[in-house]
Structure formats: C-alpha cells, structure tokens
C-alpha cells in the first residue's frame, strides 16, 4: 500500500453557466488541477468522474482536453458523488496499480429549483403523506435533534449567519453577503425551521484533484506542495427503524467518521478545520456530534460560543459551506477537499485558518451514504 498525496487541485468559481456544458466546466477544473501539479493530460493514468444528472461526463471531459485512451469511470452517489470519485482514485493509487490518478466532480443544476424532484406515483403524494422535499426532510432531521436537546430556531439560523459571513472572504462562493440573524430568521419560511437563507444554493460548478503515489511525488519533487490523504472512508446506511421513511443522515456519517479517525490514527481534537455537509442549516449542528467535534447535545453550545467560526476552537465551513459557496452535487465532495488544501498550503487568504495542519471533509448523500476524508500537510 502506498501513501497517496494530493499534488494538484482546482475548483472553478461556483455560479451560473447557462451556456456551458458539464464537460466544459469539468475540463476547466481538470486543466487547473493539472497545472497546479505541473503535469499534463498525458501523465494521467486513470480517472474517475462524479456527476449525478448527466452520463459519461468523464469521457466527455477528455474529449475536450486530450483523449489518451486511459481508463475513465463515471460514478454517482447522490451528494457524496465527488467524494466517491476521489475515493476510487485514492484506491487506484493506494493499491500500487497507478501512480497518477485524476478525480473530478461536476454538476450543472441552475434552473432545477432547490426542492429536488417529486417522487412518481399514481397520484402525487407530496403534501398528502408529508413531504419528501429536501428542506422538509432536513428540517425533520433537525427537529429530531431539537426535541432531544432543546435546539432553538435561532441556534439553527446562526449556522447560516456564520457560514454566510465566512463566504464574504471566499471569492469563489456564489453568495457573498452578510446575513444578520434577524435576516436569516425572517427570510421566507420554506419548511420550518429552514428559511430560504438556511437552504443551500443550486449552482453549476466543478472541482478536480490529482492524486499521486509517494514514489511519484518524490520523483517529480512535489513533496513541498503535497498533501497527504490520511483517511478516505465511505459508509452506507445501516438498518435503522425510521429509515428510509425518515432518511437517516446521522448513522452513515458516524460510521464513516469513525473509520476515518481509525485509519488516520487521530482524534477529532487533532483537527484544525472541518468542511462538512451543511446542505441545510439544520444539518450542520447534527454533524458536529456525528463527526465527534463535540459530545452528545453540545452542538447548541458550539454554535453559540463561536467555537466553529473562523478563529474559534475548530472552524467549520470557512469556505462558506454549501449554504453560501453553493452545492453543485457532483462537485461538492471534491470542492471541500480544495478548501482544505488551500488552508493546509497557507493559500486561503483572509479566511486562512492559522497554523492549519490537519483537516476533515465530509459529505452525505441521501439514499444514503457518507464519505469522510482527512488531509494533512505533508
């Protein structure tokens, strides 16, 4: 087994690209990642592409930047799609079969609406048997936590205040605007307690990463810029009484996190920053606990005390998170590795987490899966 390193990574600014294709967006990210690593498309030995809403995007990307005949596979795993592509590439290098692998995630989804799509039935069941919309689904997950620990509407809303504030320092985020607590709480109510400003934003986007074996990193003299992947963990949902009637976003995350910590041989207290899956503000607090950033019921204090804000004990979503950076499903899991890499390389500008050496990235895909990666400056 070889240690696996990130030597090149890129994320295009998330936003609206109505006149582009997913392949074009993905190709832009791949070219950026190749340049970052100082290699060309001819050096890439295998590639994995994550995209949910379109097929064969990986091959289409190479049709844009150079068709070399290498193995290219497309993966789809809901909101964990990009992270799953990274994990496949990581395994390809780790086993020693390949020295240079590419993972890219891309999605074009503006105009799709933030609610997701309705389930098909002989009659529509939305609003008849509750709601399957994403804002309501994650509201119910949040209410479950609130019923146990007394989390208030305002505490959930503070997640958006924090992450939107972080995004004002991220030129690649789609929403760069301060949103005071009253503004978040008084925004249009979508599914209580999630207001419109507590929902992630559908955007177009792409991100790509070049992974290399330790041998190749040394051969190319890239160790000074390399980031070591300390852990790559993926979990599916174990049986739970209420799942899938009430999608369980907690168990898969807990399993993936535990596996990742064991693989890395570290504990949560060793982390310097975390990018987690804040698809809705109600989700972030649950994941503090799921990722072992705090003990049972302590998420309320975490958000109140500022522990997870930039400058706090363990900054969470300093990129602005999905709530403000945007959430192009297939790209999201690669984009949060991009954010960690910026910090570990001291390239994050005014939102830099001082002295960052170790970071964790997390995504959840409903259906359900979760991926957790732990990165460390080599």
């Amino acid at each position, binding site marked *: 087994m070889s240690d696996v390193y990130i030597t090149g990574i890129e994320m295009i600014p998330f936003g609206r690209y109505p006149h582009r294709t997913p392949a074009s967006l993905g190709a832009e990210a791949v070219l950026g990642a190749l340049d970052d690593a100082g290699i060309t498309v001819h050096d890439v030995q295998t590639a994995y592409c994550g995209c949910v809403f379109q097929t064969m995007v990986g091959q289409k990307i190479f049709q844009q930047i150079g068709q070399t005949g290498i193995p290219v596979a497309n993966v789809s795993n809901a909101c964990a799609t990009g992270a799953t592509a990274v994990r496949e590439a990581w395994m390809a290098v780790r086993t020693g079969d390949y020295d240079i692998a590419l993972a890219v995630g891309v999605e074009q989804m503006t105009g799709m609406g933030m609610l997701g799509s309705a389930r098909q039935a*002989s*009659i529509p069941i*939305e*609003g*008849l*048997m509750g709601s399957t919309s994403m804002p309501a689904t994650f509201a119910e997950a949040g209410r479950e936590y609130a019923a146990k620990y007394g989390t208030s509407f305002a505490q959930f809303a503070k997640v958006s205040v924090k992450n939107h504030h972080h995004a004002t320092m991220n030129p690649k985020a789609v929403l760069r605007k301060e949103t005071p607590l009253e503004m978040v709480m008084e925004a249009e109510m979508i599914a209580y*307690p*999630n207001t419109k400003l507590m929902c992630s934003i559908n955007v177009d986007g792409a991100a790509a990463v070049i992974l290399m074996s330790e041998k190749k990193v040394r051969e190319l003299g890239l160790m000074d810029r390399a980031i070591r992947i300390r852990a790559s963990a993926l979990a599916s949902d174990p049986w739970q*009484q209420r799942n899938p*009637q009430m999608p369980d976003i907690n168990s898969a995350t807990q399993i993936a996190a535990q596996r990742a910590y064991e693989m890395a041989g570290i504990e949560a207290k060793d982390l310097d920053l975390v990018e987690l899956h804040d698809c809705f503000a109600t989700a972030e607090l649950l994941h503090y606990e799921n990722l072992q950033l705090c003990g049972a019921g302590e998420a309320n204090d975490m958000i109140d005390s500022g522990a997870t804000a930039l400058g706090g004990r363990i900054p969470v979503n300093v990129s602005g998170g999905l709530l403000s950076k945007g959430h192009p499903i297939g790209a999201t899991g690669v984009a949060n590795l991009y954010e960690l890499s910026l910090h570990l390389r001291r390239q994050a500008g005014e939102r830099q987490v001082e002295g960052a050496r170790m970071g964790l990235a997390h995504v959840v895909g409903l259906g359900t899966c979760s991926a957790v990666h732990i990165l460390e400056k080599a």
Partner: protein
Amino acid sequence: MTDTPASPPLPAASYIHLDGPEPRLSFLKCKSCGTMFLEPERLACARCGSRGGFDAHEPKYEGTLHSYSIVHRSFPGTAVPFISAVVDIDDGPSLKGNLRGVPFDADRIDGAMRVRIVFDDALGRRDADGNAYISHFFEPLAAD
C-alpha cells in the same frame, strides 16, 4: 350519456387495505427479528438479513410524533402550508404522513404528542383514470 357508477376508491399506499368495512394498515413483519417494513413484498430482512419470510401484521392505530416540519413551500402545485410528520406507530413501524388538526405554529405543537391514525379521501386527488384514493392522516389524540 351513460350512467356509470363511480368505481370504489383505491389505497394511496400499498400498506393501506380497503377490503373490509374500515380501511386498515398491514405491514410485513420479519419472522426472525420482528422488524416491520412498509413495502408489500421483500426477499429478506434489512435488519437481520433473514430469508425466513414475513407475516402480515396489523398495528395499533395510535402512535407518537417523532419529528415534523411545517412546510410552507413545496413542489409546484402542492397546496401549502401542511405539516409533514414522522410518527412511531404503536406496535408498528414509523410512518410519514400529514399531521392535521394542529396549528401551523411550532410554539403550539407538542413535538412528542400522541396521535391517532385516521383514513380519509386523498385531498381530492385523482389519477389519470379519475380514480379517487384513500390515504392515512395523523390527528392529535388530545383533541378528544
């Protein structure tokens, strides 16, 4: 015009049965571990993996609210507001449905209230052939 009698309503979910005087619920119950499932047939149990088969099981028609959301915006064409609720049925599985008969105000909803399961017309919804449907709903028990 010919006078065709209206066809009887259909169940809005496979676990709702309209074969008796009153609508009833029936779930699959694993013969090995007792776990219940909503779908009408399964090859094996998701919890224990047993392929030993399932019994049909009728639960109580009461339960406890586990979580909910007051939905103010939903898919296009869906009437709002409504309350989406997850209820743990007594001697049954957890079920999602509309909670009715309570205000659309989180401060006035007991998040762990006892509810009854009732059946009613599926909000006037019809399929392409004009069939009516019967769905389940949750109502607070305390309203008695």
